[in-house]
């Protein structure tokens, strides 16, 4: 057990930072309280550095997933941190500064907000490190529980409380689902460690209890990735929460869910079906139907919205559907490249999605109405390219990338999903994916045309203006720049994700041999 600890330094760092931030945020000195964001940033940077230098774990089902996933989590986490800065307690701090009120630790939300964010990221990283069902369950809960509170305290309005109550209760229901699924998986294999589960499945095959457990846990995990049939909460929660928190919800739980799904599928292995390259029929079918329904429902619901946040929420649902295609395709042939490795495509897409999605939400978060309420309606971004060019163009670029327009980042990501599904022979889902990309173009084009071509509304009483937080437009610009810039360094990222997407327990002898070789390779230098 303790030998696993060497892989956990990023989490340990984040945990220590979390504790520090929790204390700092309660300090009576305003200067010390302001340190919260900076300390979090330092913690995340250190965690990213540690993760980048992290070693692959030869005993894990996906030996290389940890370094890649954790670096992505920390990088997007840094962006999210910049976006989240200043979400809570702005007015309260201003009141304290002007002497209207005194600092009251019970009233202040700052410490909780930052530390919960870091807790959630810690949980997310732990998902990537998970080696057993228990660990995975705890990590998933650690990822989710803080986000419930963050939604509620993100604004002081009734909307975020409504969002919070829906998110919490439905989240508890979803957790009950996948927990029940986990218990059945345990029952079906008699083991909690993924290694043992894989061994048991390899030795004894699949039994009905295991199948039932897999199905229920997949459906339960659909809640985390906002997939059908557990997607209902998404739009309400994203709309109710403050934009920065919505951006976080679209990335953090989704990534946790995908890592969990990939891990469980890797334990089962992609060595069933006619060519021994797909998941067992039941599991494949549940993922297939979920993927097809998720992208279709998400895209169709997005068509008739006025709220940009709801559009983005439904687009987030649709993107989960796209990414599930990669899970269905599986890691492809041993030694195959990125184009045949669906898991690599999913991991790479998570990275792409993190950047482009945070960018769109950052544009919204950078705008507010004159009365202080958040910008949300599609009219609020009308003519943004002429009124606030940087924000407008960031929106246009990020939306183009979400649409998958070449040569932007989203295109490279989507290409991987397409090619991996094709090389896995899953033509039907590729057609569904293509059709959905076309439907999605309709509402993404609204997000592109409205800021770019439309004239800003004149004499608008609720004219939008920039919020006074400099980091938010910065996030928008950084994301937009990454959407272009990361394409230029696509290959190293693609390679890293291809390495991360290699599943060692791949059923056939060759893979196991390779895994053993990898193990020896890695174990050798360490006495």
């Amino acid at each position: 057990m303790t030998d696993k600890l060497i892989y956990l330094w990023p989490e340990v760092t984040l945990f220590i930072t979390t504790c520090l931030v929790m204390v700092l945020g309660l300090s009576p000195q305003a200067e010390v309280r302001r340190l919260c964001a900076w300390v979090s940033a330092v913690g995340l940077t250190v965690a990213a550095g540690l993760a980048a230098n992290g070693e692959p774990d030869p005993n894990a089902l996906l030996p290389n997933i940890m370094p890649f996933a954790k670096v992505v989590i920390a990088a997007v986490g840094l962006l999210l941190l910049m976006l989240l800065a200043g979400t809570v307690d702005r007015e309260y701090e201003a009141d304290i500064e002007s002497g209207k009120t005194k600092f009251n630790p019970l009233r202040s939300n700052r410490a909780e907000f930052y530390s919960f964010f870091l807790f959630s990221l810690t949980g997310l990283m732990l998902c990537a490190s998970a080696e057993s069902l228990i660990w995975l369950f705890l990590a998933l809960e650690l990822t989710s529980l803080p986000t419930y509170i963050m939604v509620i305290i993100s604004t002081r309005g009734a909307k975020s409380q409504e969002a919070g109550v829906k998110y919490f209760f439905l989240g508890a229901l979803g957790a009950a689902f996948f927990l029940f699924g986990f218990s059945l998986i345990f029952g079906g294999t008699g083991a909690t460690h993924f290694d043992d589960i894989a061994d048991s499945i390899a030795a004894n095959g699949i039994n009905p209890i295991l199948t039932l457990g897999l199905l229920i846990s997949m459906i339960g995990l659909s809640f985390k990735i906002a997939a059908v049939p557990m997607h209902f909460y998404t739009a309400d929660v994203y709309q109710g929460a403050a934009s920065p928190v919505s951006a976080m919800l679209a990335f953090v739980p989704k990534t946790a869910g995908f890592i969990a799904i990939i891990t469980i599928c890797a334990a089962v292995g992609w060595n069933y079906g006619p060519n021994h390259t797909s998941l067992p029929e039941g599991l494949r079918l549940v993922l297939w139907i979920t993927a097809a329904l998720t992208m279709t429902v998400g895209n169709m619901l997005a068509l008739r919205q006025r709220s940009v946040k709801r559009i983005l929420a439904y687009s987030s649902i649709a993107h989960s559907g796209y990414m599930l295609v990669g899970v269905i395709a599986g890691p492809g042939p041993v030694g195959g490249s990125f184009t045949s490795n669906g898991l690599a495509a999913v991991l790479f897409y998570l990275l792409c999605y993190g950047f482009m999605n945070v960018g769109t939400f950052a544009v919204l978060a950078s705008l507010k109405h004159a009365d202080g309420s958040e910008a949300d309606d599609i009219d609020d971004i009308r003519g943004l390219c002429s009124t606030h060019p940087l924000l407008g163009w960031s929106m246009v670029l990020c939306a183009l990338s979400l649409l998958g327009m070449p040569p932007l980042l989203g295109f490279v990501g989507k290409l991987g999903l397409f090619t991996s599904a094709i090389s896995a022979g899953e033509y039907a889902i590729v057609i569904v994916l293509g059709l959905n990309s076309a439907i999605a173009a309709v509402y993404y084009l609204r997000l592109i045309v409205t800021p770019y071509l439309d004239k800003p509304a004149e004499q608008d009483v609720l004219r939008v203006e920039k919020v006074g937080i400099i980091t938010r437009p910065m996030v928008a610009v950084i994301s937009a720049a990454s959407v272009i810039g990361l394409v230029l360094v696509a290959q190293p990222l693609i390679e890293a994700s291809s390495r991360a997407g290699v599943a060692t327990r791949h059923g056939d002898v060759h893979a196991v041999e390779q895994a053993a070789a990898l193990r020896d390779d890695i174990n050798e230098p360490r006495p």
Partner: protein
Amino acid sequence: MLEVLAQGAFAEPMASITLAHYLVLSGAMFVLGLVGFVTRRNLIIMFLCTEMMFQASGLALVAFARYSMNLDGQTFVIFVLTVAAAEAAMGLALVVLLFRKQESLSAEVWNQLKG
């Protein structure tokens, strides 16, 4: 399937109680919790229903652990209880907050966000 489940792996005093009994009980608890969650309007009761679903999983885990003689499952239950407790604390705090806001415990008053 059933004959597998019915294989007695339990000690003598309870030999007549097979794994299947536990699983049926656990499944019933899960479904009852689910039905309760859907049909009841009171937030506290709804929350207790999810607790019941958690405990259904716990029961299944204990039974499986005993059946396969792997105590990891029972360890799992301890963790589930802990998480359930944490969730309960959060849930009750949330309910108090919401009650202050709306003077009602009904889930139906929260329906402003939709579409």
